[in-house]
């Protein structure tokens, strides 16, 4: 017979306002095996924990049920307290009477009834709990950072500085990411490249950092402390150790008609190319799809002109397999596709551009060497219209429902810089709201209005027509209840941002979850914002949600600290709630092996004693406890009920259900 102690928490008024706590106590006291029941205003407080520990000692409790908030909140707290009082922590169960009861009910009678039902279920389950021991698994002292933008660079640098090895994987030929494409950064207007490139050089030169550019993640297996990752290092067709980055190859390359991704397609690049002047590593790649040598077999000019004999047409993709203790996702963002926004004439008129294109257009290393000119005729625009919220806060299905967060500020920046450099250019900004929460942000926006005379109009652009050599913009001035039309030479669209296309693929590989918009979800929106729900996987930068450079850098540092928390340990306690196989009744069908998403189950030939007490040699399922994540898929798939999950056994679950029904 068990001696069960039940503790019901008020959680201030969170629970007590909707659940009659006294009535719950009264009901559970009547249940056989319940030796002690008590309520307390805040069970998680020191007083509450003392109450529980004293009761365990005084009444010799063998099982404990705490009726309180979600186990995700305080299960660890209460189990630790129980352990300190000499009870195996896995002999304690939580009945969630807050999130799943008091918070969702308004009627006290209904809430109380449900709280009693949940308490009964937990009591029924805890009777069959068995003491479990957490195992240990080793930690590989190396981290992987996926994405080489400012988020990834900062995370890698912080981990490396703390003395641990880091591998930084970037899909593009150079690290630097979106920040390397920007001209200036708000609100201080420092040149983006001037503050980014030193960091790029630092990370590349750091002895603890290995950079894999032009590389992608191919496969991920394992678990926190022991991830095994295959990285596909794509063939550059250039030997990185010989190349000096002189650039003769790209100058002489005859195939120069490929849209230049770095300049957002505003100009063309050669087939062999270095992304940008400050690229790290400064080693070109051959874009085989557009290279004459690869497409026609004729050419080979780059090989002839290369003074270092670095060109190698025979290079092949390489797979690098490496083990890691923790992984950081820093995959960044891209702008959304604007084909559904026909009213703006984007893609039809060369003078309607996105904000990211405008950045390239005003950047000294851009297609116009920083001279603001129209892509159609090279003339300097005299009137520029900026449109905010293009595809942001859009629930119609054409755009994204969220606020892209950075657009208000970069639009103010672009408008201000235009007025600064070209005082004879008129600038109009159409906005829905101007959102400037941030240090020095609102002051910055007001400067654009007050000092630089940027015309801010609350309203949107409904239609743009090409008329002669200028654009006719139909818009509204919502505050003055009027319908306006004006002539512009250039229109800049503050396009919504979305997570990089690779996010979804990576989420599947890492079993990290993503939301409806493909942003990686954090383990807790407030208290665990840089952790993914998957142990050992952390988030850095825009892949988790829209953010600007300073916020990204802060989050990158936070993610690095979380990684260090793992790498600094030699071993990690494993979760003992894993699957186990009753070999006596296992038929060896291996249905479990097929459904296991972690590859934790395999068949093994063993000598087992069957149900008739006879020895026999046959195949049975064997669970690798280090790989098992305790999802329970195998227990459902098993046709003979041999598979069971420690801590959530079939017997325990059935008892819970029986107690409710």
């Amino acid at each position, binding site marked *: 017979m068990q001696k069960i102690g039940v503790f019901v928490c008020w959680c201030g008024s969170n629970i007590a306002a909707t659940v009659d706590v006294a009535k719950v106590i009264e009901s559970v006291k009547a249940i056989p095996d319940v030796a002690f029941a008590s309520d307390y205003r805040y069970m998680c407080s020191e007083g509450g924990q003392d109450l529980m520990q004293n009761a365990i000692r005084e009444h010799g409790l063998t099982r404990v049920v705490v009726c309180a908030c979600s186990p995700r909140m305080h299960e660890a707290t209460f189990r630790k307290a129980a352990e300190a009082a000499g009870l195996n922590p896995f002999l304690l169960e939580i009945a969630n009477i807050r999130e799943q009861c008091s918070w969702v009910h308004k009627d006290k009678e209904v809430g109380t009834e449900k709280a009693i039902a949940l308490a009964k279920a937990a009591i029924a389950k805890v009777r069959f709990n068995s003491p479990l021991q957490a195992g240990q698994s080793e930690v590989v002292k190396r981290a992987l950072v996926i994405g080489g933008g400012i988020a990834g660079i900062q995370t890698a640098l912080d981990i490396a500085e703390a003395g641990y090895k880091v591998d930084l994987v970037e899909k593009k030929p150079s690290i630097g990411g979106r920040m390397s494409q920007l001209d200036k950064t708000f609100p201080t207007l420092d040149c983006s490249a001037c503050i980014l490139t030193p960091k790029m050089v630092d990370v590349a030169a750091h002895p603890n950092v290995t950079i894999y550019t032009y590389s992608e993640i191919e496969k991920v297996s394992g678990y926190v402390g022991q991830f095994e990752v295959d990285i596909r290092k794509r063939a550059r067709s250039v030997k990185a150790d010989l190349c000096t980055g002189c650039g003769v190859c790209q100058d002489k390359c005859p195939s120069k008609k490929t849209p230049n991704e770095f300049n957002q397609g505003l100009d063309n690049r050669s087939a062999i190319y270095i992304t940008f002047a400050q690229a790290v590593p400064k080693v070109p790649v051959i874009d085989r799809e557009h290279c004459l040598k690869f497409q026609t077999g004729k050419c080979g000019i780059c090989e002839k002109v290369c003074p270092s004999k670095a060109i190698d047409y025979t290079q092949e993709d390489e797979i690098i397999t490496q083990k890691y203790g923790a992984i950081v996702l820093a995959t960044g963002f891209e702008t959304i596709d604007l084909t559904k926004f026909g009213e703006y004439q984007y893609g039809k008129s060369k003078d309607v551009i996105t904000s990211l294109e405008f950045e390239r257009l005003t950047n000294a290393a851009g297609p116009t060497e920083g001279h603001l000119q129209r892509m159609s005729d090279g003339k300097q625009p005299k009137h520029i219209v900026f449109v905010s919220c293009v595809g942001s806060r859009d629930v*119609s299905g054409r755009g994204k429902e969220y606020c892209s967060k950075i657009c208000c500020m970069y639009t103010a920046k672009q408008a201000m810089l235009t007025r600064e450099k070209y005082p004879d250019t008129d600038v109009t900004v159409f906005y829905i709201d101007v959102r400037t929460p941030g240090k020095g942000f609102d002051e910055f926006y007001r400067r654009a209005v007050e000092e630089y005379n940027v015309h801010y109009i609350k309203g949107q652009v409904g*239609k743009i027509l090409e008329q002669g050599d200028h654009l006719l913009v139909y818009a509204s001035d919502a505050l003055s*209840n009027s319908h306006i039309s004006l002539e512009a030479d250039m229109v800049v669209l503050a396009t919504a941002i979305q997570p990089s296309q690779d996010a979804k693929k990576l989420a599947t590989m890492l079993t990290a979850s993503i939301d409806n918009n493909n942003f990686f979800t954090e383990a807790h929106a407030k208290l665990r914002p840089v952790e993914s729900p998957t142990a050992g996987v952390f988030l850095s930068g825009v892949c988790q949600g829209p953010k600007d450079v300073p916020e990204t850098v802060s989050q990158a540092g936070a993610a690095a600290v979380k990684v260090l928390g793992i790498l600094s340990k030699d071993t990690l306690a494993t979760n003992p709630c894993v699957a186990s196989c009753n070999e006596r009744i296992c038929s060896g069908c291996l249905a479990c092996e097929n459904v296991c998403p972690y590859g934790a189950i395999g068949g093994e030939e063993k000598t087992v004693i069957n149900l008739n007490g006879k020895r026999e040699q046959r195949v049975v399922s064997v669970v690798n406890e280090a790989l098992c994540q305790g999802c329970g898929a195998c227990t459902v798939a098993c046709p003979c009920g041999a598979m069971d999950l420690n801590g959530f056994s079939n017997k325990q679950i059935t008892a819970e259900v029986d107690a409710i029904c």
Partner: protein
Amino acid sequence: MQVNEKEQAAEIVRRSGTDISKCMQCGKCTAACPAGYKMDIQPHRVVWELINEHVDVLQKAVTPWKCLSCFACAERCPRGVSPAALIESVRLSIIRQQGENCITVEEIPAYIDEKMPQQAIVAAFRKYNK
């Protein structure tokens, strides 16, 4: 039956089937409207007046009679609001208040002949029946 402005506004919104609480007053509807230049109350203001339960001002305006029902406003709205449907509903409220042109279910058979499209009868019934 005399109804107050508040109830009337609620009825106009309900009948339109559009959720005005989604509106951010961005003015995209007005910017997209081909007839906006002839209106005294611009489409985004129609939504605004209904949010503030001002029906009188809308019923007296020329806007309901200038709207072409082209639905460009609804098409462009980033929030899924349809000013055109709201204006249509305001038009109905005017017609119905005049107490004219109302038909009842019993009267319908009298209107039916071979040349009358069925759709027109259904439309008339929906429009004119209280």
